[in-house]
């Protein structure tokens, strides 16, 4: 199997910054690192497994109703993930609220199934799905890192900015509340795309 199947989706063909897929439900979970990582893992699993399963049954799916078949397969995996999250990390699943369900309509999953799973063999589809999920997770984690650090001064809930810096304790530092609000996630992604496209141009 070609190693490229695994490596290109993570950086060169990153689903978020290059292909613009799956931004929908992603950004709302990036206020804190922990839910972002849980979300990244869930999406990676769902993309990989559903691509794999669709690829297994690709020859039996009638073309006209393939969208519904795909949605049902994806929904099944998402329900599994949701039940597992509820059982083992209940707090995080409360924070993620409806966004776990919205993995179903995450464009990355449908996009990869349409572009790869429907035509390729099961194993490469699994790898392709997993790699795309990881590429997506990478962006999610980078955005969450900055939003949590600047917005609330913590990482994984642990204080990073020393308490004595804060204005309340005689310092001059204040958390930047804007980073917790939705707009900053959009602007951060915009900047990430800017950085990535400038670097890639130099490669050519």
């Amino acid at each position: 199997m070609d190693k490229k199947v695994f490596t290109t989706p993570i950086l060169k063909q990153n689903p978020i910054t290059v292909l613009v897929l799956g931004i929908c439900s992603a950004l709302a979970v990036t206020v804190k690192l922990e839910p972002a990582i849980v979300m990244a893992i869930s999406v990676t699993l769902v993309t990989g497994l559903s691509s794999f399963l669709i690829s297994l049954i690709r020859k039996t799916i009638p073309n006209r109703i393939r969208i519904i078949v795909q949605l049902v397969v994806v929904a099944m995996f998402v329900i599994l993930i949701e039940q597992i999250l509820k059982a083992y990390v209940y707090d995080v699943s409360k924070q993620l609220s409806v966004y776990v369900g919205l993995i179903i309509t995450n464009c990355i999953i449908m996009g990869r199934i349409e572009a790869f799973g429907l035509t390729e063999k099961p194993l490469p589809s699994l790898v392709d799905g997993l790699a795309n999920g990881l590429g997506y997770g990478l962006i999610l984690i980078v955005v969450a890192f900055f939003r949590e650090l600047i917005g609330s001064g913590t990482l994984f809930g642990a204080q990073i900015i020393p308490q004595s810096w804060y204005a309340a304790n005689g310092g001059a530092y204040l958390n930047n509340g804007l980073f917790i609000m939705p707009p900053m996630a959009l602007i951060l992604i915009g900047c990430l795309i800017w950085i990535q496209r400038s670097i890639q141009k130099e490669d050519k």
Partner: protein
Amino acid sequence: MESLNLFVKSIFVDNMIFAYFLGMCSFLAVSKNVKTAAGLGVAVIFVLGVTLPINYLLNKYLLSPGSLTWISPELANVDLSFLSFIIFIAVIASFVQLVEMVVEKFSPSLYSSLGIFLPLIAVNCAILGASLFMQQKAFATLGLATCYGLGSGVGWFLAIVSIAAIREKITYSNIPKPLQGLGITFIIAGLMAIAFMGFMGINF
């Protein structure tokens, strides 16, 4: 009064795009000119306005815990809520397919202008998202749920038409090369989201 309040709130304060990032994919992909953006916006309003009441009834009489008592009181302990993702997405996908067929049959001109967007809508996160939020907010009546659906649709329409208008205007602006296209669109969306934050706290 309550329904008007909910309607206005779901347009401006709880805007699908700027507060919850739902429907980002088509928001970014189909906002290159105002006309197509408006077409997709209208289709979203329509699909939301119909699927939300359907899903509300399904949720009330089939899915939520203890909702099966109308069949027989013995079923009071049955909780089918884990099935909600699969049922909601099936309703949405089949409704979209149905609308597509009806429109194709009876109004070919509308079909040619709207047709390409209809399949896109089945995987638009805003539609499934609205149904999931409806389940979470547990509206009291069918009317309120419909108001919420229509309001979210109008909010989405407003957002996509305004960003399409802005993108038309900036076509000739001098933007740094790597930031062109996607990058600047994200940053504009972020700035618009900041503007929409000004609506917070609207109440009648």
